[in-house]
């Protein structure tokens, strides 16, 4: 029997058959396997689901829905409650769980399942994705089974990509595509990725910073360094410990970064009063930090990012380098919100550096646009799915 006819038989209501489906079916040894039936059911459920683009970030998870824009922006935090018999259940996800971070009793653990842009805890990530997918479909009666595009760091390994893909499939996705974060960021920022012109994007995320040069719907050069918002927080915590002999938590460090964090000197001096545990006395004490101190604290991680950008400029072909020099580097991601990061990069590279509009959502929006235009652009953008 010609196995080529299987998709037609499995597809009585005329849904689109993707090339990847054909591949899967042709490699299936049985005619109507359990997998086919499950896939068919998922397709039925998929009619009632929206296609999603997920920016599964270390710090925040964003979901973009076709036609609706960003529908979810919550911290990638899950609180796990341990029952009396050792059974674990999800206590909270997202904003609610982030409030618990560092403030949990013994039976609850608030964890961040992603580290450095990749999955650190597979099961918890799956639960978190499941929660978020359901949240954006909460008015639906039928369990959602959407097509999902997930952004992955360009430096992630095949094993890490497989883990993300399977995690999304386990969370109920009917089809999972992966796209490299800088490509999604470039599309989301509005760079001309389809032109024969080099466009450089720097995405400073929670766990990683990605730098890439795109041209003709492809990535010419990309590099990922495991420096991001988390490293900034760690640097602030270490600085406070070293200079004030006080211990501050993850949330406080992040708050300091938002309030008075700066990447380049010369701006307005700002101050913040924070509470930390004095290591010598063992009791909480308050002290005042200013923006110059934070600038000093952030020097080490910032230099790592600058180094990555400089290396990229060294590595790319001269034609593309000229394009970048003419137009500039676009910065996206949460790190772009750090004050004067553009000025720092400008001074270091001598090129114009621009912050994208709404840099936090660029990756998710770019993924969404890629998903919307997948048919038109074929699978060029998603060529790295397998």
């Amino acid at each position, binding site marked *: 029997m010609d196995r080529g006819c299987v998709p037609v038989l499995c597809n009585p*209501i005329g849904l689109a058959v993707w090339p990847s489906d054909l591949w899967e079916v042709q490699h299936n040894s049985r005619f109507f396997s359990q997998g086919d039936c499950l896939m068919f059911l998922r397709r039925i459920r998929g*009619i*009632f689901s929206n296609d999603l683009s997920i920016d599964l970030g270390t710090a925040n998870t964003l979901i973009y829905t*076709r*036609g609706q824009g960003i529908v979810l922006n919550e911290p990638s935090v899950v609180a796990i409650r341990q029952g009396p018999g050792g059974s674990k259940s999800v206590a909270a996800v997202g904003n609610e769980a982030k409030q618990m971070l560092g403030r949990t009793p013994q039976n609850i653990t608030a964890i961040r399942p992603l580290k450095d842009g990749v999955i650190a805890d597979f099961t918890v990530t799956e639960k978190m994705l499941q929660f978020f997918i359901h949240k954006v479909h909460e008015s639906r009666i039928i369990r959602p089974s959407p097509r999902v595009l997930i952004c992955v760091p360009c430096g992630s390994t095949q094993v890490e990509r497989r883990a993300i893909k399977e995690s999304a499939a386990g969370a109920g996705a009917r089809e999972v595509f992966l796209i490299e974060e800088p490509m999604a960021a470039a599309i989301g*920022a*509005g*760079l*001309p990725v389809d032109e024969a012109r080099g466009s450089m994007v720097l995405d400073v995320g929670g766990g990683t910073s990605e730098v890439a040069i795109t041209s003709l719907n492809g990535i010419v050069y990309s590099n990922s360094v495991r420096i991001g918002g988390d490293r900034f927080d760690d640097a602030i915590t270490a600085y406070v410990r070293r200079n004030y002999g006080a211990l501050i938590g993850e949330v406080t460090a992040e708050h300091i970064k938002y309030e008075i964090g700066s990447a380049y000197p010369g701006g307005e001096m700002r101050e913040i009063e924070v509470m930390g545990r004095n290591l010598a006395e063992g009791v909480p004490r308050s002290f005042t930090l200013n923006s110059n101190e934070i600038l000093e604290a952030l020097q080490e991680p910032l230099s790592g990012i600058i180094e990555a950008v400089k290396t990229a400029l060294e590595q790319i072909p001269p034609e593309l380098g000229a394009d970048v020099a*003419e*137009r*500039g580097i*676009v910065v996206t991601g949460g790190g772009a919100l750090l004050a004067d990061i553009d000025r720092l990069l*400008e001074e270091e590279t*001598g*090129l*114009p*550096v*621009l*912050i*994208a*509009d709404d840099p936090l959502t660029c990756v998710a929006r770019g993924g969404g*646009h890629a998903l*919307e*235009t997948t048919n*038109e652009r074929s699978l060029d953008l998603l060529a790295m799915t397998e």
Partner: protein
Amino acid sequence: MSTYLIPSREDDTTMGPVDSPGRRLRIARQSRGLTQERVAQELHLHPTMIEALEHEDYKSLPEPVFVAGYVRKYARLVGLAPEPLVAAYGAAPARVRTDTAVRAGHRRTGVSHLTVGLVGLGILLLVGVLTFLWRQYQRPDLGLETTAAAEVGREAAVSDMLDKIPEPELSAFLTDLEDLLADQETGQSPEPGSDPETAQPQPPTTDGTTAAVGTQPTGVAQDTAATIAGKSGAIEVSFNGPCWADVRDSEQKHKLFGKMEKGDHYVLEGKPPHAFILGNAAAVQVTVRGKPLDLSTVSRGNVARFTLDADGRIR
């Protein structure tokens, strides 16, 4: 350099509206005594880009993301509020390309919603048709007569019988009945084992014949009905309480199906043997040719399952 500091009148005419963003930038730059070259150097841009920005020459400017970035930096440099200027540049034709892309996405979404709507409608119709068919299937063709219907049928049968009895026989019967009544009036007790209905005292009537005619059909009807029941092997089912029943004939047609209530009485027809399932056997009395059946032998946990053959025997 002086040409940049002191703009000519020609420059003013080519600048467009007075409050255009390019003109505002240029005026702010000039008021600070900066040249285009100086600004370009500060912003790490080519001077032609600064000129294009001031002249709002969108053909020479790159994509909106870059323009927004340049304008922000330029505005900050010359001490203007960046966001209104960025918005003013954003409203210009340079954004057409992005808008088209977004519109294409929306069009696809519209088609997708239409598909979802049609598929949803189809599913609803399918569910409706299936429900209708299921109900049709679940409604059994009982072929039963209720108690009232049975009574009407019986009366019709009695009147037919009366018509069939020849006139001499009828008058002889009436004479016998008159004799019997006369005996009762004289104080003679009725014979033991005689029909209680006929033994009941009749109300005194002025016209004996009319009375006799009035009483006659009952006896005949009883006999006739008994004969009919005896011949056809009629099965009667009476319910003294709520009970779930499933009775089918040999052709597997439902004769009784569903929950029966107290006081229901049915006479079964159809081709024997009948298969019975009675949910509350204690509340049911099954009578075959007037003889009640003992259901306790076929009950298990108050549920009776049995088959009644043509002779009225339980199998």
